[in-house]
């Protein structure tokens, strides 16, 4: 086993360390209104890592970086010094963040249409949800667990672009899904990770069209709607991890990216609704056909337009739209990359394209269904999942 995945000594129930982590997890579950999937097994996390929530339900947590520095603020018979309280804030945040991760289900990401756990869009969404939860409830959880004045303020954001974009999407997409942002957030959080984007699409389709959509159309419509969400959130990796983007400006990029993502999602949805509503009105009782090719071309046009908006804004998240790679490459000018920022962006684009292009993803579904090559197929990733 990889050294970083090896667990340190088990932390046993009855010890302060165990009981504290258990109380943080219990509080996280209480505030979330959902159970944790932690199986009760806890181990020390070696190395410079806060901890990990494992697929088998166990958790590791760093004694050096989390448990030891947090302890003075949570020991009832001890009055922590101001410097101890200050040093305990970050570790408490990490413990709460990890407790929140344990509320998510890993699920099965090998079924068709699933989002691979560890993909860019999965990491963006999960980290955003955990970050928002930690920021929202961290102070209250700390207050519940200690009478000492532990302030959770002053901590740097962990994932500012992901979190801002996801917040924005909750409002925009929640509206067309017939639910408020918090209800949509609850729906996503309570859905296992590989099915979250599908759950968003289903909520919107069900609200807008009810039973007008035949079950056999559902998978393709999900892809038409989840595509913008996946590209928008996955593309934010460029922003989130860029050395050249100041943390403060990441909020702005997250906001603007989410706005475009929501527009694309909502416009695609409107076209889908129009197709089924029109058919039902003109052909009552007759099963509707799938979306026409002309509408799928419109979706591709929209995807290109979104890219252009980003490019015009100075953040050219350019990737050729599936099925239009040749035309894209032919019109691409020579890129001299006059500065480090553009060079970095080019490298990030190349990376993202290599990991998200449908042409890079082996798909037996596409071949079997006979659908045109220019239809983005989701959930048919190559066997080695995750970010390479």
């Amino acid at each position: 086993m990889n050294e970083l995945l090896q667990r340190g000594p088990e932390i046993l129930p009855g010890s302060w360390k165990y009981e504290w982590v258990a109380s943080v997890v219990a509080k996280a579950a209480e505030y979330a209104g959902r159970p944790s999937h932690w199986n009760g097994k806890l181990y020390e996390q070696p190395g410079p890592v806060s901890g990990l929530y494992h697929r088998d339900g166990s958790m590791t947590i760093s004694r050096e970086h989390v448990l030891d520095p947090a302890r003075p603020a949570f020991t009832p018979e001890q009055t922590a010094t101001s410097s101890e309280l200050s040093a305990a804030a970050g570790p408490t945040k990490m413990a709460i963040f990890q407790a929140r991760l344990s509320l998510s289900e890993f699920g099965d990401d090998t079924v068709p249409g699933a989002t691979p756990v560890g993909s860019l869009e999965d990491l963006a969404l999960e980290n955003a949800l955990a970050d928002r939860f930690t920021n929202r409830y961290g102070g209250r959880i700390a207050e519940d667990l200690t009478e000492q004045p532990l302030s959770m303020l002053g901590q740097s954001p962990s994932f500012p672009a992901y979190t801002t974009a996801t917040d924005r999407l909750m409002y925009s997409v929640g509206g067309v899904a017939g639910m408020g942002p918090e209800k949509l957030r609850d729906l996503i959080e309570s859905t296992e990770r590989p099915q979250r984007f599908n759950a968003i699409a289903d909520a919107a389709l069900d609200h807008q069209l009810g039973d007008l959509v035949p079950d056999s159309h559902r998978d393709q419509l999900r892809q038409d709607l989840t595509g913008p969400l996946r590209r928008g959130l996955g593309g934010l990796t460029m922003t989130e991890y860029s050395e050249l983007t100041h943390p403060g400006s990441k909020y702005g990029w997250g906001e603007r990216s989410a706005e475009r993502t929501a527009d694309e999602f909502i416009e695609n949805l409107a076209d889908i609704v129009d197709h089924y509503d029109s058919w039902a009105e003109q052909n009552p009782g007759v099963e509707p056909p799938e979306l026409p090719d002309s509408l799928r071309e419109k979706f591709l046009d929209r995807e290109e337009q979104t890219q252009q908006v980003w490019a015009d804004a100075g953040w050219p998240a350019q990737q050729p739209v599936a099925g239009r790679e040749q035309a894209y490459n032919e019109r691409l000018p020579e890129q001299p990359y006059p500065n480090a920022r553009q060079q970095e962006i080019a490298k990030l684009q190349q990376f993202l394209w290599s990991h998200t292009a449908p042409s890079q993803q082996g798909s037996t579904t596409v071949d079997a269904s006979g659908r045109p090559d220019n239809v983005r197929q989701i959930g048919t990733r190559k066997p080695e999942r995750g970010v390479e």
Partner: protein
Amino acid sequence: MDAYREAQRLYAQAMLSTASGQDRIAELEQTVQRIGELVPTAAPGDRAAVLLMNSSLVELIAGESR
């Protein structure tokens, strides 16, 4: 460049890597160690973010190792 941003740079470098399999895992491990070396020099308010970044990298290692 401060430790927080340097950690982000290292993370970006790891994410951009085209390596795969064991080479990929080795690169991720190396990045975790290098980011770890930055932790003591990070501002107190940045340390949690830096360590959570490392946790995310280890999650990727776990995914690669599956």
